[in-house]
């Protein structure tokens, strides 16, 4: 079986080399034009990964190719910081891969470009991908205007890392359940004169504020994503809570650049809480000395009144419309969606699986620190499904930073934010109001 794969790829590659040489010798633009595209391998599936997942998936693929000897997967790893540009330029240049990993905040954009293949019918016939097994909010980030475009691959939600020993010293036996308790603890644990703070919230990261903002009972955008809704009472309360944390000196007003190495500072007790995501489980486990491993834990986010929601972030697997190997691509998605494979991905990278049955694996089930994520996943909310969201979130953080610096009151900040969001959404409103144009493809 393996022999087939080898003979299927190697000679073709050398044919390509010869073609290249011909191109060089000819040195002629017309020939170059025809040499422009590498000859497509009929059995080759091209998969793009973003960031760390590339290294891990290479270890998962041999088993897949053993099961499906007729499919050969070629992985191309995009660095996270270059991924957005590569995806859009590839779309513009008609050179998208067969399938890719895609952050679910980028999914609406790719859908707006009409670049992705709807997947509902494949899911309907699938024995592996079962909607009911997935955490509902992470599944819903893949549905745009009622159509399913992706299958969740892993979840990146935000929770609290905290120092159990420091809380105990301050007289708290249980982690906070709501904002009032949290505020009390932050106050008790902060001592700015000794350079000690309740929590680290880097002022140039929008994710922590966004996680809290999603706890607001009102949506962040209104009228179907036409206008900002930041002047709602709910968001104002969130922003007040967030800004107060800095005003009360329970968090230092510094950026993540100035914060430097948050892990060792957390270890030294500079911060008692740290609002962050799954990858930091691995970081804390590898960076903190063994003696300190018993002193930290994780917990779901406290809400305004009782346990609160957090963001339904993460990556999905999507198939491009232009792919000529959609069936093979779906086969790969099904393979990567198997609970056992998702558990291996967790073991390799710490990526949290999006389906409940994957959490039955021993390494997740028996890990109390991972269980906080499991609990949070039942209480996640998706970000507004508009392509402009990332830009709006960036503005949200810039305005919040001004409020932290005391340049704006809460009312001024939210008004300014709505104004900026409305400017960013202007084109979207126009599109929605001229549907005949946007549908003429």
């Amino acid at each position, binding site marked *: 079986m393996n022999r087939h794969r080898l003979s299927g790829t190697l000679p073709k590659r050398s044919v390509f080399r010869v073609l290249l040489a011909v191109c060089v010798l000819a040195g002629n633009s017309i020939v170059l034009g025809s040499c422009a595209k590498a000859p497509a391998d009929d059995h080759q599936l091209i998969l793009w990964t973003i960031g760390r997942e590339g290294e891990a998936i290479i270890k998962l693929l041999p088993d897949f190719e053993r099961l499906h000897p007729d499919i050969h997967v070629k992985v191309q790893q995009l660095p996270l910081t270059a991924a*957005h540009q590569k995806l859009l330029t590839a779309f*513009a240049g008609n050179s998208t891969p067969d399938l890719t990993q895609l952050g679910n905040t980028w999914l609406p954009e790719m859908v707006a470009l009409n670049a992705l293949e709807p997947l509902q019918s494949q899911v309907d016939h699938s024995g592996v991908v079962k909607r009911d097994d997935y955490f509902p909010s992470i599944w819903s980030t893949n549905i745009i205007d009622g159509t399913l475009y992706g299958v969740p691959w892993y979840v990146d939600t935000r929770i609290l890392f905290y120092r159990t020993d420091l809380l105990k010293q301050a007289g708290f036996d249980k982690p906070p359940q709501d904002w009032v308790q949290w505020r009390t603890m932050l106050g008790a644990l902060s001592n700015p004169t000794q350079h000690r703070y309740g929590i680290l919230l880097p002022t140039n990261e929008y994710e922590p504020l966004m996680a809290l903002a999603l706890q607001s009972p009102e949506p962040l955008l209104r009228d179907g994503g036409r206008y900002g809704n930041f002047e709602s009472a709910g968001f104002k309360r969130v922003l007040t809570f967030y800004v107060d944390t800095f005003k009360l000196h329970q968090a230092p007003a510094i950026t993540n*650049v100035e914060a430097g190495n948050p892990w060792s500072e957390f270890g030294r007790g500079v911060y008692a809480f740290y609002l962050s995501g799954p990858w930091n489980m691995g970081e804390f486990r590898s960076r903190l000395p063994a003696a300190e491993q018993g002193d930290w834990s994780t917990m779901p986010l406290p809400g305004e009144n009782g346990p609160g929601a957090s963001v339904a972030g993460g990556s999905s697997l999507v198939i491009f419309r232009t792919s000529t190997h959609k069936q093979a691509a779906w086969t790969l998605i099904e393979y990567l969606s198997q609970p056992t494979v998702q558990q291996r991905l967790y073991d390799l990278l710490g990526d949290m699986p999006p389906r409940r049955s994957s959490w039955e694996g021993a390494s997740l089930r028996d890990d109390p620190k991972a269980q906080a994520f499991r609990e949070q996943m039942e209480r996640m909310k998706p970000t507004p499904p508009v392509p402009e969201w990332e830009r709006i979130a960036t503005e949200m953080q810039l305005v919040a930073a001004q409020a932290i610096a005391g340049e704006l009151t809460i009312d001024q900040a939210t008004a300014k934010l709505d104004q900026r969001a409305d400017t960013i959404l202007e084109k979207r409103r126009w599109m929605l109001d001229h549907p005949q144009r946007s549908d003429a493809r």
Partner: protein
Amino acid sequence: MNRQRVAWLFLAPALIVLGLFFLLPVIAALALSLTDYDIYALANIHNLRFVALSNYWLLLQRPLFWSALGHTVYFVAIGVPLSMGTSLGAAMLLNSPLAKMKPFFRTALFAPVVTTVVAMAVIWRYLFNTKYGMANYVLGHFGVHPVDWLGDPHWAMPTIILFAVWKNFGYNMIIFLAGLQAIPIDLYEAARIDGASAWQQFRHITLPMLGPTLLMVSILTVSGYFQLFAEPYVMTEGGPLQSTTSVLYLMYEEGFKWWNLGSASAVAFLLFVMMFAVTALMLRLSKRGEGADA
């Protein structure tokens, strides 16, 4: 007649290439900057709207544009004089009759120019690493505390300037060297007989004789330094805290990361206008300077 046709046939390939792949796109860029070309327009060209000057207007209100402009001007204002000073110094050393092994030194000093920016930027990232970098190690011997060269918003741009000077000074050095060699020796001899010091010789002979070369070189260097892009792309990705985001970096991100081609084209044109204005100003000032001397 026939001779004319032959001439145009010789010109045709180059003119077609330049017209089609340079002139036409430049005109199109101007047109594009008056539209709201974005991902919606990429999906369907019917979603393109004419917006007149609003891209320019919005840009002028964006803090990021002004900070990118500020960083670029910082880079040009410090980098160009430093770079030209280094070039001139090196050229004068090489031109000195006392210098030994001139061909070797000339090649050694010029070598960084022909290297690939990206590869060199990668090297500098390691040389200026906070913990294991050679720069901090050497400075440590002089009692200097480790500097977070590329991670500290205040140091990132100076480090990039240092890199650019190292990478580029050899180019102008060669031009200055040729200029220096063209200055008649007897001018210096006459000055020495008159008792002029080395500084006076430099001030009253070298600089005036190099005048036109200096002007030309500074104009070319300024326009080159305005186009700062690869260095921050590789060394800092525009950070930390966007402290190394240049105008071109902003154009690249606006255009190809967010696909706002309309406003990215406006950025490109503003850069062009600025470069043009600065160059024109330099020419003008130098003319006035000449007038004052005469």
